[in-house]
C-alpha cells in the first residue's frame, strides 16, 4: 500500500528557543550549586576556591535561567497562577517552587560567603538547602519532558540523566577555565562525564523503548534530526579528544577557552536537538512540522539576548565582588 498525504495541517512549534536557553542555564546552575555544596562540606585546601567560583557561576546562571523560562510562557504576566492553583501532580509547577527558592538561597549564600558573615554551621545548612533545591530542579526539569508520551522521542528515563551529565561537563569546562591551575584536574573530570554521557546517549538510542525507536526512525528517515545527531557525535568526539589532551598536558589559554566553548556548544546542541528537534516530528501526519529560526525575540534574539544577559550579570557581579573586597579588605 502506497500512501500519499495530500492535505495535512502541520503543528506549530510552541516551546520556543527560550526553553532551550532555560534548560541550558538551569542545568549548569544546579550542577554548580551541587559542587559548591560539596566544597563547603568536604574539607579540602581548595574548597574555598571551588566554592567561590561555583557560587559565581550558579548565581549568574540561576538568575538568567528563570528569566528565559518566563519568556517562554505565552502569558508571562500570569506566572502567579502557579501559586494560586497549586497542582502537585504535574511536574511543571514544581519549578515555581524550586526556582525562586534556589535563587534566593543561592543569593543569600553568595552574600554571606563574600561578607564572611554567618558561622560555618549556617553556611553549611544553607549549602545543603540550596543543593536540595538544585536536585529538585534537575529532577523536575528532566521529568517534565520525559513524561510526555505524546512525543515518543522525549519519553525516556535517559533524558534527565543526559541533561545532568552534559550540564556537569559544561560546568567542569567552565571551572577549568576559571581556575587555570586546576585545568588538568577538571579535564580529567570532564573525560569521565563525557564518556558517561556518550554511554547514556548510546543506551538511549539503542534501547528497546518507544524513545529509542523514535530516535532510530529519525536517523533512518535522514532529515534534520539526523543532521543534529551527526553534529552531536562530532562535537562529542572533538571535546573528548581535547579533554583527553588537557588532562595530560596543560593547554594554553586559547585552547582551554575553545574547549570550554565546544563543551558548552555540545551541551546546548543536545538540548536543541531534543527540545526543538523533538517538536518538528509530527505526531500523526507524514509531513514534518516546519521550523525555521526567526530573527526576533522568539528566535535568534532570545538566544543572543540570554547569553548577553548572562555575560552582563557576570560582569556586574564580578565588579560587585571586587568592590566588596576593596571596601572590606579584611572581610
Amino acid at each position, binding site marked *: *500500500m502506497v500512501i500519499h498525504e495530500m492535505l495535512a495541517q502541520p503543528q506549530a512549534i510552541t516551546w520556543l528557543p527560550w526553553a532551550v536557553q532555560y534548560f541550558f542555564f538551569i542545568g549548569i546552575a544546579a550542577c554548580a550549586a551541587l559542587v559548591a555544596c560539596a566544597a563547603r562540606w568536604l574539607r579540602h585546601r581548595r574548597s574555598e576556591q571551588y566554592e567561590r567560583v561555583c557560587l559565581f557561576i550558579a548565581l549568574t546562571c540561576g538568575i538568567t535561567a528563570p528569566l528565559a523560562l518566563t519568556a517562554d510562557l505565552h502569558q508571562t504576566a500570569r506566572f502567579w497562577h*502557579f501559586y494560586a492553583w497549586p497542582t502537585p501532580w504535574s511536574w511543571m509547577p514544581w519549578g515555581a517552587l524550586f526556582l525562586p527558592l534556589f535563587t534566593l538561597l543561592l543569593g543569600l549564600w553568595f552574600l554571606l560567603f563574600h561578607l564572611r558573615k554567618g558561622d560555618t554551621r549556617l553556611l553549611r545548612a544553607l549549602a545543603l538547602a540550596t543543593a536540595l533545591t538544585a536536585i529538585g530542579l534537575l529532577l523536575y526539569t528532566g521529568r517534565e519532558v520525559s513524561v510526555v508520551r505524546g512525543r515518543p522521542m522525549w519519553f525516556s528515563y535517559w533524558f534527565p540523566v543526559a541533561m545532568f551529565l552534559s550540564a556537569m561537563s559544561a560546568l567542569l569546562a567552565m571551572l577549568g577555565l576559571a581556575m587555570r591551575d586546576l585545568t588538568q584536574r577538571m579535564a580529567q573530570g570532564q573525560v569521565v562525564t563525557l564518556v558517561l554521557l556518550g554511554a547514556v546517549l548510546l543506551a538511549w538510542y539503542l534501547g528497546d523503548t518507544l524513545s529509542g525507536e523514535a530516535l532510530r526512525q529519525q536517523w533512518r528517515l535522514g532529515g534534520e534530526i539526523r543532521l543534529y545527531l551527526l553534529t552531536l557525535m562530532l562535537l562529542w568526539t572533538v571535546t573528548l579528544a581535547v579533554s583527553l589532551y588537557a588532562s595530560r598536558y596543560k593547554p594554553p589559554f586559547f585552547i582551554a577557552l575553545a574547549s570550554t566553548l565546544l563543551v558548552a556548544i555540545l551541551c546546548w546542541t543536545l538540548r536543541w536537538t531534543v527540545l526543538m528537534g523533538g*517538536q518538528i*516530528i509530527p505526531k500523526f501526519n507524514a509531513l514534518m512540522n516546519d521550523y525555521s529560526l526567526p530573527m526576533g525575540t522568539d528566535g535568534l534574539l532570545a538566544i543572543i539576548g540570554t547569553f548577553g544577559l548572562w555575560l552582563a550579570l557576570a560582569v556586574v557581579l564580578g565588579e560587585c565582588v571586587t568592590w566588596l573586597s576593596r571596601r572590606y579588605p579584611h572581610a
Partner: protein
Amino acid sequence: MDISKRQFLQQIGVVTAGAALVPLAEAGIAFGPERREGSDQHRYAMLIDLRRCIGCQSCTVSCTIENQTPQGAFRTNVNQYQVRLADRDDVTNVLLPRLCNHCDNPPCVPVCPVQATFQRKDGIVVIDNTRCVGCAYCVQACPYDARFINHATQTADKCTFCAHRLEAGLLPACVESCVGGARIIGDLKDPRSTLSRILAAHRDDIKVLKPENNTRPHVFYLGLDEAFVSPLQGRAQPALWQEVEYGHS
C-alpha cells in the same frame, strides 16, 4: 474481650490519627485532576462515519467561523490521502477528519500546571483561558495534535465539542454543517441515542486513533483502515506541492 491498657492506648492512637485525616478528605484536597462542571448524567462522544465523508472541509470552515480561531489555526480539519495498492494502478482517496478526542484518560489534563484545562463530568475536555498561562505543556502532551496556541488570546485552544452550543440544545458547528452527515454526536450514557445504537451495531468495526497510547479516545471512526490508526511518518509520503505550499504560508 480482654484488653490491656497499653493495647487500648495504642489502638486509640491509630483511631485518632485516622480521624485527623477525615477533615482533609472532606476539604476536597485533590491528589490528581478532578472532573468539574457539566453533568455526570451524560458522556458526550462523537462517531465519524468515514463512508459518508466527502472531504469538503465544511466542518473546518464552520468551526473556524463558530469559534473564531485565528487565521491558519483549526480546531478540526480533514486530512486527505491518496492510496494505491502495490499491485494496482488506480488510486483511491482516504479522508480523515481530525479533532480533539475528548479522551477518557486525557494526557493533556494532568500536565496542566494551573488546572486551567480540565475534563467536565460529561467527558468534554475544556480550557479556562482566563487561567491558562500559555505554557503549551498540554500541546506537547496531546498525542493527536489537537491543541495549539491561539495567538489572539496567547493561550491553549482546542475543540470543545461546541459545549456552548450543546448547552443551548444545538449541535456542534461541524456536525451541523457536515453535508454527508458523517459526524454524529451523542450521549453514551443514553442507550437509545443514535450514537449508542450505531456504536452497538458496528462494535467490531469501530476504531480510534493511537489506541496504544491508552488515552481511551471518545471520537470513534467507522470505516477507518488499520493503516491510518497509528502515525504515518515513515509509512506515507507527503505530497511535494504541500511542502512548497507550507513554505510560503
